[in-house]
């Protein structure tokens, strides 16, 4: 117990003293996971809406695949993305391995199915009668889709929070594709693993507290938007 209290105190000390490395790591975590979440929204919301509104042969299979993808193990994603990005890999010429861009890519693979799956569920739960009514009022298909997405605002923001929560807390893929390089790909989760393995438990706890705090702040902001009238 003493250790945890010590760690929490240490977290405040690190933040208040303006420790440049801790701030840089915190900011990088937000940047990478924020970019991955936004990209996953750009892909997941249209894809999820399309899946919710369309009927085609094999749709059941695609939906099952998306739902499975919502639980993709980050280490598996990390392993495959690493192999793809190896110098001798398919995308080796891009020289992306061990860069923040590679981490965004891996986190996007993790978050996109989550956002797609939750968007699909959100749009589908809007009653069909509502859809027909909007169309009957003379809306075009695009307008109808837009109204639907707005109607599903609450669950969509929940999708965003789930996507962000999934990637900001993820460590396996970030460690593998980023390499935990000091000053360039070290994020809060990988730094926590490193400090733990060094035996610096107080710093590790401090980093965990910071991670929890920023996750809370981001979700608080999103919840504020979600619950706004």
């Amino acid at each position, binding site marked *: 117990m003493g250790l945890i209290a010590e760690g929490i105190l240490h977290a405040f000390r690190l933040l208040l003293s303006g420790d440049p490395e801790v701030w840089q790591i915190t900011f990088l975590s937000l940047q990478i996971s924020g970019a991955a979440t936004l990209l996953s929204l750009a892909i997941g919301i249209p894809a999820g809406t399309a899946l919710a509104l369309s009927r085609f042969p094999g749709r059941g299979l695609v939906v099952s695949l998306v739902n499975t993808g919502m639980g993709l193990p980050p280490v598996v994603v990390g392993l495959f993305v690493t192999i793809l990005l190896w110098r001798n890999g398919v995308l080796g010429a891009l020289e992306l391995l061990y860069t923040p861009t590679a981490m965004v890519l891996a986190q996007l693979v993790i978050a996109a199915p989550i956002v797609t799956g939750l968007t699909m569920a959100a749009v589908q739960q809007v009653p069909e009668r509502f859809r027909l009514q909007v169309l009957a009022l003379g809306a075009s298909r695009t307008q109808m889709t837009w109204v639907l997405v707005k109607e599903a605002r609450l669950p969509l923001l929940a999708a965003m929070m789930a996507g962000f929560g999934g990637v900001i807390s993820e460590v396996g893929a970030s460690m593998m594709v980023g390499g935990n*390089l000091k000053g360039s790909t070290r994020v809060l989760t990988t730094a926590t693993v490193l400090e733990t393995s060094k035996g610096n438990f107080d710093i590790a706890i401090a980093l965990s507290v910071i991670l929890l705090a920023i996750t809370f702040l981001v979700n608080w902001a999103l919840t504020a938007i979600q619950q706004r009238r």
Partner: protein
Amino acid sequence: MTRRLVLTLALLLVMAAGLKPGPTLAQASVILSTTTSTQDSGLLDVLVPMFEKKSGLTVKTISVGTGQALALAARGEADVTLAHAPALEKKYVEEGKMQNRRVVMYNDFVIVGPEDDPAKVKGLPAAGKALKRIAAAQARFVSRGDKSGTHILELGLWKQAGLEPKGAWYIESGQGMGATLGIANDRRAYTISDRGTWLAFQKRVSLPIMVERDRPLLNIYSVMEVNPANGPRVNAAGGKAFAEFMLSPEVQALIRTFGMDKYGQALFVPIAGKKDEDF
């Protein structure tokens, strides 16, 4: 709708612009594959920035187990390797995957265990004899089990002792040295650790040294350059530059005192210019 979309895209662009892109010049970065123990000791945190400043190259330090560090290098996924498993390293050199292997420094391993020492190994001069007693007593022993340099050394010791460790008393952690020490501490078991990590965990584990300073417990670190034939994008010049840097008098002098301030004793002994046979 379009306005929101434009806003989102603009935000994405800002985020992306803030991220450092991959190096545009292939030769501008060197990938160093190394072991977790060198990273955990903090030595590389001092040496890497020094090298970057001197050479103008960016170093990407990938700290993994020795097995993986060498396997990555053999695939041309690294440019230079700093490892501590001489037998395995020599095999890679013989196969032509690695070249110009040179010793850099050493530290040593210690056999540690619970205070009450159920297998009665404390103070034995030979590591092999201690392992024999641990096996005979079926006293719990935690192995790294991860193909790290430490694990490879441990397996070598069992082999030399003519034993094949098996049974409920032999626990494989599959984790790094720190985590393994933690498990050994909790399970009141013996384990083998490099001295540096053991010192770093003094505050958290109470596993006194049982056996030390036996020749087979010597932990020799070598630097090797990756054969450019291993892959199309190996930065051979950068790898060589890092190897030379590790052997330079300046770095060797720094290694001699590294750790003094924190642990009251140096963590490594520099040995550039020597050979394995000298020990």
